[in-house]
């Protein structure tokens, strides 16, 4: 029965019956994929899928290359966004109601505690995985060949991750929130240390102005909570989404994930990849290779897709979904067993003792306990500047996409790990045992402490040692490995010290069980 002879209702009925097929077809635009050509089309024709290339290099699919770290960070962000949306149902950003709302979420709302834990832990896990992702990028030498600026965006994403976590920490308006806000706002005001020395604070109080803008006043109060809330739910998420969009977009423009120059044919070693299917679609059955497939690179390989690529559908998407489900399962399992902390209602008269920042800032708190300005602004600023400069100071093009570049790189990484750990433990041991200038000469001028304190010396040592590595090996790449390794070691050990080894009055204890009872 041809269309022209159908009645109106007949056509209607036929359309109704074929809705499933026609809707799916309109959604995927080219129907369910059956050949390599249509597998390509389904990616290219889909807004979300075309974030990926139609073809994916087999090296990208090697779990031992990427470790899935960037993807895990992204999925953690998605989980944090969704769980955060749920928390917003009950939360209200007023110092009178915020604490009760969070308590309600914890104790009254069904699965509220789990939801809050998921939000908290997915956010904090992001810090760990973003750092690990950075480490992967550094150690596989992937910050080169057009990717320099994407590394810069990555560092911006790291900072946004930290600030998002920190602002979230302040929202429950409990003791932890309040005293974190006090300390952070005073770190913002720390340039006062410098302006005081030069006697220009009354004319140019940059620290005081920053603090006032952050707090919306001179002391933490309703204005502060409003501003922190604004940052946490609008400005920073918008910022991180924008930066993430550019981050992904640039990865694609740079030809997908980094990979070594030479990847052996079919040496994928990845079990789950389905091999290219050279029939159907645009490939006539009697031909063995298709020159139509032009991708980056110069080696045509017979019966093998150009440059060891396979179709993203389903190879890449299967891998991504697997990473997602494991990430989600991990977060839920952790959140089921470990509760996010919630202390008493904020009390401006009694600080916690010890008053600790959230764990990811306890390394900085250790540095802050030498000098507020250097520990809170100077040293983190220099560390970030150092990270940003890595791709611009190391421009060696060899060994791209290879873990640790070569044997020498592995040795440098191990050596820098040991040297960095020794330096940071040594400086901590010295300060803990002997104190610093203020303990020896109470009247010493503050400028001396800003200029010479254990944090500065540590940073100076790290920079000097990486320069020494460059000189010894004649390779800036080795310097980059050394610098980043020492940065990571310092961050981890300082954080551990601040978290575990510091007790009441910021004094040293081997464990919390030795803290005095009071």
């Amino acid at each position, binding site marked *: 029965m041809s269309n022209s002879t159908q009645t109106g209702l007949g056509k209607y009925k036929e359309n109704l019956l074929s809705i499933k097929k026609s809707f799916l077809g309109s959604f995927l635009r080219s129907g369910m994929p059956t050949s390599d050509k249509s597998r390509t089309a389904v990616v290219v024709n889909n807004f979300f899928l075309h974030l990926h290339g139609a073809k994916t290099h087999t090296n990208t699919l090697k779990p031992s290359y990427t470790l899935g770290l960037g993807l895990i960070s992204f999925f953690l962000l998605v989980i944090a966004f969704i769980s955060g949306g749920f928390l917003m149902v009950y939360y209200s950003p007023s110092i009178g109601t915020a604490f009760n709302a969070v308590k309600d979420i914890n104790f009254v709302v069904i699965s509220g505690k789990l939801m809050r834990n998921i939000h908290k832990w997915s956010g904090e896990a992001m810090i760990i995985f973003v750092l690990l992702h950075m480490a992967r990028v550094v150690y596989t030498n992937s910050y080169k060949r057009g990717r320099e600026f994407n590394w810069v965006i990555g560092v911006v994403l790291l900072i946004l991750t930290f600030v998002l976590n920190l602002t979230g920490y302040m929202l429950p308006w409990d003791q932890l929130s309040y*005293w974190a806000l*006090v*300390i952070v*706002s*005073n*770190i913002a005001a720390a340039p006062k*240390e410098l302006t*005081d020395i030069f006697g220009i604070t009354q004319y140019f109080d940059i620290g005081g*102005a920053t603090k*006032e*803008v952050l707090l*919306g*006043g*001179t*002391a933490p*109060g309703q*204005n502060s909570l409003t*501003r922190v809330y604004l940052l946490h739910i609008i400005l920073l998420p918008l910022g991180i989404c924008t930066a993430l969009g550019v981050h992904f977009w640039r990865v694609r423009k740079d030809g997908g994930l980094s990979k070594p120059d030479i990847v052996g044919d079919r040496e994928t070693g990845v079990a789950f990849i389905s091999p290219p299917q050279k029939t159907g679609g645009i490939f006539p059955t009697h031909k063995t290779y298709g020159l139509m497939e032009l991708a980056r690179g110069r080696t045509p390989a017979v019966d093998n897709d150009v440059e060891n690529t396979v179709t993203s559908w389903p190879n890449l998407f299967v891998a991504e979904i697997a990473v997602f489900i494991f990430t989600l399962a991990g977060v839920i399992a952790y959140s089921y067993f470990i509760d996010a902390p919630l202390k008493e209602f904020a009390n*401006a*008269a*009694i*600080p*916690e*003792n*010890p*008053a600790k920042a959230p764990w990811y800032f306890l390394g900085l*708190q250790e540095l*802050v*306990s*030498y*000098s*507020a300005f250097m*520990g*809170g602004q100077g040293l983190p600023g220099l560390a970030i500047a150092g990270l940003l400069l890595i791709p611009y100071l190391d421009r060696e093009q060899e060994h791209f996409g290879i873990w640790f570049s070569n044997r020498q790189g592995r040795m440098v990484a191990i050596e820098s790990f040991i040297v960095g750990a020794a330096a940071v433990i040594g400086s901590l041991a010295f300060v803990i045992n002997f*104190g610093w200038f*203020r*303990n020896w000469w*109470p009247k010493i001028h*503050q400028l001396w*402490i800003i200029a010479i304190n254990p944090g500065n010396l540590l940073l100076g040592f790290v920079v000097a040692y990486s320069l020494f590595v460059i000189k010894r090996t004649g390779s800036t790449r080795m310097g980059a490995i050394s610098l980043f390794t020492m940065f990571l070691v310092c961050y981890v050990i300082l954080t551990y010290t601040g978290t575990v080894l510091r007790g*009441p*009055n*910021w*004094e040293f204890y081997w464990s919390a069980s030795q803290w005095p009872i009071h």
Partner: protein
Amino acid sequence: MIKKTRNTEGVSRRDFLGLAAFGAAILGSIGVLAGSLRFVKADVYSEESKKFKIGKKENFPIGTTRKFDDKNVFIFSDDNGLFAISAICTHLGCIVSPSEFGFQCPCHGSRYDENGNVIGGPAPRPLEWYEINQEVDGTLFIDAGKAVPQGTKYLFA
């Protein structure tokens, strides 16, 4: 003659006007943004007054040590008079507590002697001393917005 006036300095009139317009657009936009940022800093915030009454001087016989918890100020009284010392650590704003050597901050371990001088830890400045005044009816009040030199003690009639 006409040629000379057109192209003497290398920038044509058209280019100059174009650049000037483009520059003005950028400068104007930056100016608007910078001006808008001023929005986030109010001239006055509705906050608690820094001045607060502490009662008559008879409440503070010689040897008194008292802390006004909600104001974070210590009041001391000795032979030379009354004096008020801030309880806010000059390092990062935690609240110090009295100890055997003077004051101790819990957050980053700053230590002060009994006059508020730093004797250890990261604090950059001594604790602030505040002005104490007397109302006409004899009530004393502290102005925590007004720092006075260390050692300023007040004797009231």
